[in-house]
């Protein structure tokens, strides 16, 4: 009894200190000079550019993550081939490597002195570089969600569909996709959260050009460094709201997935 109170109390205290208080602080600071200043900070042209750039990068990164994730999960769960475990390790690489290192790797490849430097591709300090960096840090999320799911579901339904005369594409769209849709959506949410919030890798490749190559996190940093706290917190609150929305969607999905799993278990027991 004493232990329960102590442990629950500790957990709540920790969460409040490190999550709820900062979250509240962001909103309080953002609204310190009234709603007018808050809205002005968001409508600032540089802020708008940052928001647009973040949305663009995140959507491309999510699409890339989905395509790569489905391909990788399909390859790993449906085929036997040499080097499979090595491939699985490589998928985890972006989790293991610090994002700053990822950014530096891109500078080494695309920078003026880099391998592809002489080609002047215009990747670095421009939108393509930011997109590539975002893709790098967010691509494993969908694959990581789908691989265990597809492993567990097996291939019998797909085999049945093929034997009933369905083409490969029909089998994918009508059988596989409905089976994995919740896991896929979960991966998309996680990849999106990571893509929008990414700071380190993007910071290295963007060059921080105001109104051109700043994403939301970079814009927040610049505003903060200029002691423009209200604007910094106002823009930061956008990211915080996104995080809350992501958490909400994630909780909803987890509930849905658990319900499906329970139904499947009942089915197996029947």
């Amino acid at each position, binding site marked *: 009894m004493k232990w329960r109170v102590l442990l629950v109390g500790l957990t709540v205290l920790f969460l409040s200190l490190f999550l709820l208080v900062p979250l509240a602080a962001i909103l309080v600071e953002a609204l310190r000079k009234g709603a007018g200043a808050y809205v002005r900070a968001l409508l600032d042209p540089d802020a708008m550019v940052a928001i647009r750039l973040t949305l663009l990068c995140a959507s491309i990164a999510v699409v890339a993550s989905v395509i790569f994730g489905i391909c990788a999960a399909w390859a790993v769960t449906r085929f036997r081939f040499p080097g499979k475990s090595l491939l699985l390790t490589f998928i985890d690489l972006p989790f293991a490597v610090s994002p700053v290192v990822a950014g530096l790797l891109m500078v080494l490849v695309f920078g003026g002195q880099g391998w592809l430097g002489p080609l002047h591709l215009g990747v670095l300090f421009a939108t393509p570089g930011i997109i590539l960096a975002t893709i790098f840090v967010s691509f494993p999320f969908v694959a990581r969600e789908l691989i265990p799911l597809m492993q567990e579901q097996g291939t019998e339904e797909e085999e*049945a569909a093929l*034997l009933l005369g369905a083409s490969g594409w029909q089998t994918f769209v*009508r059988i596989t996709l409905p089976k994995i849709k919740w896991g896929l959506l979960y991966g998309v949410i996680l990849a999106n959260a990571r893509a929008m919030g990414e700071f380190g890798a993007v910071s290295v490749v963007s060059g921080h050009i105001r109104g051109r190559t700043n994403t939301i996190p970079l814009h927040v940093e610049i505003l903060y460094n200029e002691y423009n706290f209200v604007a910094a917190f106002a823009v930061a609150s956008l990211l915080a709201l996104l995080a809350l929305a992501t958490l909400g969607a994630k909780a909803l999905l987890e509930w849905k997935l658990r319900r499906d799993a329970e139904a499947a278990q009942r*089915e197996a027991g029947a």
Partner: protein
Amino acid sequence: MSIEVRGVSKSFGKFAALRDVNLKVAPGELVALLGPSGSGKTTLLRIIAGLEFADDAGGGPVAPAGAPRVGFVFQHYALFRHMTVFENIAFGLRVRPKATRPSDAKIRERVLELLRLIQLDSLAGRYPSQLSGGQRQRVALARALAIEPEVLLLDEPFGALDAKVRQGLRRWLRKLHDEIHMTTILVTHDQDEALEVADRIVVMNQGRIEQVGTPEEVFHRPANEFVMDFLGSVNLFHARAEGGQERRVFVRPHDMEIGHQAQSDSSVRAVVKRIHAAGPMVKVELESEIGETLQVEMPHERYGVLGLKVGADVYVSPRESKVFFEDYSI
């Protein structure tokens, strides 16, 4: 349509699942592939279905030439979990290319007809998770039949069901086959199922075919020790033949006689250890003088006449026995 498999081998890594298998199935025949797990029967079925490819080192290609329409029923049903019973059965018709796809009304008619065939008309709107195992397997069968297959392949279709449901479905399958006469291959490890349902039985072991024959042939005239042992229980005696060679003699429990006196030279003295009188036959377990365990089955009337008790000293005599000789190449 007939099926012919010629010289098929298949290995998974170092494990040889099939070794040079030849098999012919006549049109309209119901053949059971019978064997223990790991005998290659499912691999053979999956190769015939086109789900697996034979190693081409082994021999010629697998007939039938040209992909036949195959109806395949999986052990664990493999129903589409996100579709209703109706949509599951309709799937094979709906995915046809536009040119050969029946109209919605035609599809509906066909599905309802199949639902009546499997006696589940009232459950068309249910999802697979809302059905019992036996109902699911019937839906899986209807789904396979919807595309009017030339060949029906069943992979342990009743393996996951309980004994009572199994019995019912087995008889239903045989009746269905007698009505539609479709070439059918059934994989099973259950010898009773194979003996009851099939026209012919293919007994498999370690990737090879041990014997092909009618249920009567494989049961009463097993080709070798494996088939004898696999198709029901047997008693094994070590006998010494003329010239001192040891022979292994096999006797089925129902081919053994228990008496209070020795009936012939081959009678063996034994002590009754256990009696199972529940069931159509009385099963008696005995221990012979030299410590072998013997199984004997007899009708209840005979059991009543003998008045057997556990611990009783009796004589056991084989009525009919089998000796298998190794094939010697000279």
